[in-house]
C-alpha cells in the first residue's frame, strides 16, 4: 500500500476565493512555481494535509458536496492525485508496514 505525501515546500493559498499551489525555492526544482486549482481540489488538498486516505477523502467530499454515488468522487480523487503526482506536488511513498 502506498502513502501520499505533500511535497515539502508546497503551500495551498486561498486568496479571494481562488486556490493556488505555490512552491518554495527547493520545491521549484521539481514543480511549477504556481498552479491555480479548483475549489474542490483545494478542499482535497486540505484533506491530504490532514493525512487522509483516498477512502476518507471520498467520504469527506461526498458529505461536503452532497454526493450520493461514491464511485464518481473516488475516480475523480484518483485522477487528481495522479495529476498532482505527475506535476511533482505530491509524492507517493511505498509503505512496508502491511
Amino acid at each position: 500500500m502506498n502513502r501520499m505525501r505533500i511535497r515539502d515546500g508546497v503551500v495551498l493559498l486561498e486568496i479571494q476565493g481562488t486556490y493556488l499551489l505555490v512552491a518554495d525555492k527547493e520545491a521549484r526544482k521539481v514543480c511549477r512555481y504556481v498552479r491555480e486549482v479548483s475549489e474542490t481540489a483545494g478542499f482535497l488538498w486540505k484533506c491530504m494535509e490532514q493525512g487522509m486516505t483516498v477512502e476518507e477523502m471520498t467520504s469527506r467530499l461526498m458529505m461536503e458536496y452532497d454526493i450520493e454515488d461514491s464511485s464518481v468522487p473516488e475516480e475523480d480523487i484518483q485522477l487528481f492525485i495522479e495529476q498532482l503526482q505527475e506535476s511533482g506536488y505530491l509524492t507517493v511513498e511505498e509503505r512496508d508496514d502491511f
Partner: protein
Amino acid sequence: MLLYKGGFTQMEEKVYSLNLDGYTLRYSFLVPKTRRIFGNYLTECNDTEYDIRLSRDFMEEFRWLVTEDTADEYLEYHALMIATARFLLPADRTLIHGVSFLWKDMAWLITAPSGSGKTTQLKNWQEIVGDDMTVINGDKPVISCRDEGIVYMSSSPWMGKEWYGNCNISAKLGGIILLEQGDHNEIKRLCSKDAVLPLFLELLSYPDNTDQIHMMGRLLGRILEHTPVWKLTNLGNLDSTELTKETILKYVEAPR
C-alpha cells in the same frame, strides 16, 4: 546565503540607506560599483550595521535575471531587488512588476509579464495627459498595504531599462490594470478572484520558503480586498490608453 539583520561591515565598507515607502533599509554592497546604479535613491549613513548584504552565491542564483556577460554590479543590483522584495514582506510590502504613475491624486498600476507593452502604455499616458501625471516607477514599484487597509504605490530604485521613475513618491493606489496584447482594444472590470493568479505572478519576491509564500498570500488578499482591477486587452495604440483613461475617470468620478 543572504545576510540579514545583525550584520556588521568591515572597516573599509560603507553602509547606505534607502527609503522605500517610509521604510528605511540599510545596504552594504558586495561590489562597490553597485552603489552608483542606485543614484540619488541611496544616502550614505554612518551605521556599521546593515539590513541586507548579499553573498556571492545568492547573487549568482539570480544570474537568470540578466544576460551571461552582465557586469557584477548589475547582477548585484538585480539580486538586491529580489532580496528587498522578500525583506519587505513581513511589513506587508513588496516589489511588483509593473509601471506606476500618479494621476488625479492617486497612483495607478499597469502590470503584465515582460514584453506585454507596459512601457508603451506609460509613454501613451505621458502623451495624452502630459504634465497632469507623474511617473512613480517604470518597472518595479513598491506596493504596500498599511494598517488601515489602504494600499499604496511608492518609488523604488528598480526602474527598468528606460530608467523611468522619481524618488520618494508614495500615493494611495486607485486601481490596477492588467495588460494583455490583443487584436482589438477592450477594457473590463475583473472580479478579485480572476485577478489573483496574474497578480501573484507579478509579485517579485520569488519566495525562498513557505513563510514568505504565506506573507505574499496575505498581502495580495489585502490588496485585492481594497483595489479595483481592470483587464485591458489592447493594440498598444493611443486609443487603448484613451479607453483606459475614460474608464478609470468614470470610476474616480462615480459617487461612492
